[in-house]
Each structure stands twice: as C-alpha cells, then as structure tokens.
C-alpha cells in the first residue's frame, strides 16, 4: 500500500487539530461578564440579572438570537394578529427590570437599563424604545413590588 495518501491525511489532521481545539475552547469559555472576572483586562458590560428563575430560552441562545426572535414575531403580531407567542418584548421588559436608588424601574435613558447596558458595550443602536415602553407599566411594577 502506498504511504502517500495516508501520510497526507495524517498531515491534514495534525494541521487542523489546533484550530479545532481552540474553537471548542472558545465555545466553552464563559460569556463576557464572567470572563471579565477572570481578570483578563477586558471591560465588562455588566449585564443585570432578570427577575425570574430563567429566561424563555438558554442564555447563550438568547444573547445571539433575541433580535431574530423579536423581529420575526413582531410582524406576526402586528400584521396577522397572532398574540400570546412565546417571545414578547413586553415580557422582556417586565422581567429584566433594573431599579434605581429609589427602587423605581429605570428607562432606556439610564445606562444601567438591561438592554442598554449591553447595547452600549456592543455599540449597536436599537430603536425599539422609540415606540415601545422601556420599563413596565406603573401598575405592573406595583404588582411586582407587592409580591
């Protein structure tokens, strides 16, 4: 059996191994918040925690795909009248509340706001809150505080 092909496959595996391992490592690396605590010198966006037990989907999935979920669903809701879908900007706002010193929920004008904290960090401009409320309604907030 000629050694040529087998040697080539072996060389290929050797060449490809380091990048593959590195990619796997990157996937396992904790997200930027925790990464900062490992003192890498990289500034952290300091993402605040939501109020519930867990998000509607896995955190990593939401970080990458929340915009797609919202974009897809907004057309269904506005144009087709489909209501009560799993993903809802309203629910994001109700759960991811950040309160100021007087225990009042902050609006998007505050850099501590859940959406803004990360969007400022990533330098991605969003226009959701030009029309949508960026904090829960007063009566909803009162309900949350009573519980």
């Amino acid at each position, binding site marked *: 059996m000629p050694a040529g092909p087998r040697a080539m496959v072996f060389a290929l595996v050797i060449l490809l191994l380091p990048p593959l391992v590195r990619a796997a490592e990157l996937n396992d690396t904790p997200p930027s918040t925790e990464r900062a605590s490992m003192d890498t010198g990289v500034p952290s966006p300091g993402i605040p925690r939501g109020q519930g037990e867990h998000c509607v989907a896995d955190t990593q999935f939401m970080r990458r795909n929340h915009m797609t979920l919202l974009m897809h669903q907004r057309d*269904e809701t506005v144009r087709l*009248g489909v209501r*009560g879908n799993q993903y809802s900007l309203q629910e994001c*706002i109700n759960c991811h509340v950040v309160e100021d010193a007087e225990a009042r929920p902050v609006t998007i004008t505050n850099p501590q706001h859940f959406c803004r904290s990360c969007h400022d960090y990533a330098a991605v401009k969003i226009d959701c809150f030009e*029309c949508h409320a960026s904090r829960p309604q007063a009566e909803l907030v009162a309900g949350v505080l009573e519980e």
Partner: protein
Amino acid sequence: MSGNTNKLDAPTGFDPVRRKFLSAVTAATGVALAPGVMLYGITRPSPATANVANEAVANAARWGMLIDVGRCADGCDACVSACVEENGLEGHGRPATDAQWIRKVEIRNPSTGRRQSLPVMCQHCAEPPCVDVCPTGASFKRADGIVLVDKHRCIGCRYCMMACPYKARSFIAEDLEDQKPHAPRGKGTVEGCTLCVHRVDAGRQPACVEACGDSGGGAMLFGDLQDPQSEISRRVASHATRQIRADLGLDPGVRYQNL
C-alpha cells in the same frame, strides 16, 4: 355616441369592477401556486400554526361599528376620553398637533338649523386610500378589516394623512416615554384609531364603545358586519344607516344611523 362616451370615461376614476376582476385573477394565481406553498409550509412550520389558539386572524369577520347619532349627546366626550386613557394619548396641550384618534364633530344643516354631534375616527375602509398610497407597505388592512399602521415600516412621510378623506390619522412629532405596552407609538410615525385591536383580539370591545355604553348615551355598537346573526348586522339590515362620504366608494366599516 353613448359607446364613445363610455370609452372616454373608462380610464378616469376608480373602477370597482376592474379592481374586483384583477383581485379574482390574483386569487386564481394564488390557488395555482398553492401546492408549492404547501410544500414550503410543511418543511418549515411557523409558530402561528403550531398553536391553535395562536392563529392569525382570518377574513371570516369584518369588524365594524354602528353609531346612532340620535343618541350621541352634544358635549359628551366619553368615547374620546376613553380612547385617550386606553391608548395613552395624553398630548402637550396643543390641540392643533396633538394626536387624535377619535374626535367629536358638530354639524349643522344651514337650511334648517338642525345641529348634531357625532364621533369620527378611522372608518376602517374596505378600500382604504391610506393603504393605496403608502410607499413602504406600513399602512395595511388586516384580514378582519381593521386598518392599521405597522410602525416598524412607517417612515413618517404622512402621505396617508393626505390621502385619508376623514382626517383620521395623526403624526407624532415629539419623543414619547412610558407608552402603553399594548399601544406602542413613537416619534416620526403616523398613527390612527386601531379599533382597539388588542382588545378585539382578546374578544373585547373597543374602549370608546365600552365607555359610550357605560357613561355615554349607548350610541355605539361594535360587531362583525359579516356575521348575519350579529346585532350590528341585524341593525344595519333593518334600519337606514349611512357611511360618511359613501360617494367615494371606500366602503367604510363605520356606519351612522339617524345622521
């Protein structure tokens, strides 16, 4: 001679027969394409079909309103304040530019001096001119006849405001905060009466109709114009009702009685 006149008349103005024919041709094309569409639907089921309770609105209903002007009291603005409250339309104290989804109009017959007062809002036309002129597709009519602005697509050109013969739309020129979650509205977009679409989707009545029944004269009736058993259909069938500017051929979903 008469044949000639018809030919000359044909290209001018709006021709409902021609439009119906074109719609029918489009529908037939849609049926012909249906098998391909079905295949696509099977490979990628949408969330809309996954949940039965979450289905898209169908054209089985055509929502409309009947307003008995005889029971609408001069000076009563229960419907207007209910709309402001429901949709968070608090203005800046500038009536000329503040948003107005529904307003009370006083009319007077100059020859008899008879005065009447009636609410006017988006008439939810079957052939809405605002939808015809919208350059981005933001202005649209839902399958159940409710005419809305998709603010995700609105560029604030205000062409629809010019096209609407009922002056039903408003433009928002200032930044807003803490809007109602069910009625998002923001600077640079046009808005108008939504027939309280969030309430309709939940099986409730529009806020103005509810308020008119509670604290007004009970002049407003909301219902499905397409369902022969609904109260609105029976009232429309048995009483003389009018559409405002019916001569325009827009077939508004809002009808008036005793006007």
